[in-house]
């Protein structure tokens, strides 16, 4: 397990932080979150043209940068910090990882390069309106049409950037199958006939979600029929590790902003930071965020090394980061007082992201359970 970043990784982070500070100030976040798409092509192109971010963990043979989950974790931590509005988690973390885990060589060679280039926006449609994050929750059916083609029927929800994605990786099951049996992954074009997409109203407008209704949509299978349970579980595990890194980035940014504000704000003739109650709160916040950060880094490292304990460690990190993020967001509002409760104060933007990310891919209770199962408990 890697416990320190290399000088190259630290430099990479520094470059990213500068880039995002310039390209994703909260004024830009507020503008994009008001749009239905939630992101813009131009910003997305800059992200890829200048830093090649969409291909970070995609191997070079598929047009990517060939880095590991540690570098991907750094990217996500910085994006979480900047609250970047972009279909990055959907495209790179969910869709590309699913394709890497499930698809055949030929399919990877076809689908990944345009993702790595930033030309294709992709997502993973996995969860359904029942909001379950376990494989048994998948009800969408894939009916064979012959010669390797299938027809998808059913409904997906909470699909990140599902209304704007060009390519949708869909999890569906053989009719009549149950649980982890009979699951396959499919690829569907965003504009496929029979597919209805609707942007959902969400608590976190900086990251959009959609509901997708499949009514006899023709789809191509990815990988092997009925064998998606393993690759899908791995994808969700890796995604949990990634989300944990994104969350600690947001939490750390909030923590810093709370500290800055406490140092500036004067009440009773002195900075509120000089009150012991405030110092203790700030010390507790630091502890909470640092613990979550250590777990998130451990998870990225475990994902990189295909650590046998990965499922436990990734879920530990996801549960820890979810609670630390929400708690840091609440404290940050509280430390700002009345201003913290206003629309114009930026804290609320991260608060919304914290609530939403804490639930996406499953809530802390669910991940604590997965952690124990991962350890065979």
């Amino acid at each position, binding site marked *: 397990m890697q416990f320190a970043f290399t000088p190259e990784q630290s430099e990479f982070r520094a470059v990213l932080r500068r880039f995002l500070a310039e390209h994703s100030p909260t004024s830009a976040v507020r503008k994009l979150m008001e749009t239905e798409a939630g992101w813009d092509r131009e910003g997305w192109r800059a992200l890829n043209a200048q830093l090649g971010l969409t291909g970070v963990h995609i191997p070079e043979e598929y047009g990517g940068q060939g880095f590991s989950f540690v570098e991907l974790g750094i990217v996500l931590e910085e994006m979480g910090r900047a609250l970047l509005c972009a279909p990055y988690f959907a495209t790179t973390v969910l869709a590309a990882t699913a394709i890497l885990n499930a698809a055949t060589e030929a399919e990877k060679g076809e689908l990944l390069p345009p993702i790595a280039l930033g030309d294709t926006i992709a997502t993973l449609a996995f969860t359904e309106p029942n*909001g379950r994050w376990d494989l048994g929750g998948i009800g969408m059916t894939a009916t064979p049409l012959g010669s390797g083609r299938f027809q998808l029927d059913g409904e997906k929800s909470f699909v990140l950037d599902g209304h704007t994605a060009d390519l949708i990786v869909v999890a569906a099951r053989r009719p009549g199958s149950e649980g982890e049996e009979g699951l396959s992954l499919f690829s569907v074009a965003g504009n496929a006939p029979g597919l209805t997409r609707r942007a959902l*109203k969400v*608590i976190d407008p900086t990251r959009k979600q959609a509901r997708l209704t499949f009514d006899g949509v023709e789809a191509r299978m990815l990988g092997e029929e009925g064998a998606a349970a393993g690759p899908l579980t791995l994808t969700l595990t890796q995604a949990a590790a990634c989300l944990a890194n994104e969350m600690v980035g947001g939490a750390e940014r909030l923590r810093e902003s709370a500290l800055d504000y406490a140092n500036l704000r004067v009440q009773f003739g002195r900075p509120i930071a000089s009150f012991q109650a405030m110092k203790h709160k700030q010390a507790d916040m630091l502890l909470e965020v640092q613990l979550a950060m250590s777990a998130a880094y451990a998870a990225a490292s475990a994902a990189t090394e295909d650590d046998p304990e990965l499922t436990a460690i990734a879920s530990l990190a996801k549960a820890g980061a979810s609670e630390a993020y929400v708690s840091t967001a609440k404290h940050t509002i509280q430390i700002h007082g009345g201003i913290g409760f206003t629309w114009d104060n930026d804290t609320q933007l991260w608060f919304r992201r914290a609530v939403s990310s804490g639930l996406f891919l499953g809530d802390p209770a669910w991940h604590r359970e997965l952690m124990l199962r991962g350890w065979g408990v």
Partner: protein
Amino acid sequence: MSEIDRESVRAEVRAWLEANWDPTLSLIAWRNRLIDSGWGAPSWPKAWHGRDLPAAVESVVAEEMRRIGAVSVARSGVRGLATATLLAHGSDLQKAKFLRRALSGEDNWCQLFSEPGSGSDLAGALSRADLKDDRWIVNGQKVWTTSAHHADWGLLLARTDFDAPKHEGLSYFILDMHQAGVEVRPLKQMNGHASFNQVFFTDAVVPPEHLVGRLGEGWAVATTTLMHERRGADGLAAAGGKAAERQGPIHDEERAENAIAMEPYRWYPQRAGRVDLILERAKATGKIADPVVRQEIAKLLTLAKSAEWTARRARAAQAQGRAPGPEGSLGKLAASHVARSAAHVHTLITGADAMLAGEDAPMDGLITEILLSVPAGSIAGGTDEIQRNIIAERVLRMPKEPRSDNDRPFRDVPRNQV
């Protein structure tokens, strides 16, 4: 108050209501009749629309009013703070001018205390009132003023002496909100509502008879207002009552009044966490069967019930004639814990759907509104940290922190650069 006293009050008010409740009257005519009888505010002094009865009879009278379907005096918003403050510190002239109109619902009030530079430290107010030609001229800015956009009058804390130590240079005024020198600008909150405002004063005028208490003693008067605010927690929810179902012009009038007066408070029940919805939601989602969720629900209900009973004990003590004291601060802190815990349990119960909002979210966005409103409760009306300081220093009598802001002329005290 003994059972016998309660029952004799019950019989008396019942007889009065049976003889006098008249739904064909206009809202104002009925309320004036009610106020004249003393049953509108039975715990107030006889000289001021009351009957000098202990506070405990209020609930008996309210029960009887509900039973017969009678409209009560106006209660919503800040008017309760205004009347409590005026009863304690107001001149006879002020009482005569404002108490009846508060009860009748003719006047709405707002609380002009917090400023951009002073919230927890209210005594650090910079808004100034200067006496010119026998009138007070007010300049400065207030902020977070709930309901200022509906208010006729404001309870104003302003500085009248910058050379006195901070607590001694403040005075308390009643400010007419309908004048050229007062500008109200709404502020949008993180939950999307805009119930509080910025209020700007540019040579706003206050006549000398609207100074409440003595010059330079505004802090003591403000403390009375704050004690009532903190012990009242969410009395606002009581307003309106069952009026929604009743038919007839007087009820229509009351509903119209509430639609305006209560508009800023629509989200207040959500801010308190909506513990009342927890079991219903847990059943609807099936989470009631999940042992992890059950434990969290049980913890929440333990907390909520215990907090409610603590509040009941505080009210019972008050009914025995104790003046409002700092023990009221326990209720506010407890309410913060309940609200936070309720938001947590709602999230647990709602699961992935809690990522949604508006009509896509459960209960048409109500759950989302809970999550986005709860953070206000531990800030509004004095933050949790300030409540803890009050409890530690005034209830537990722990030594105060050394202070350096109240032993020198206010103008020399460090303050925010605004």
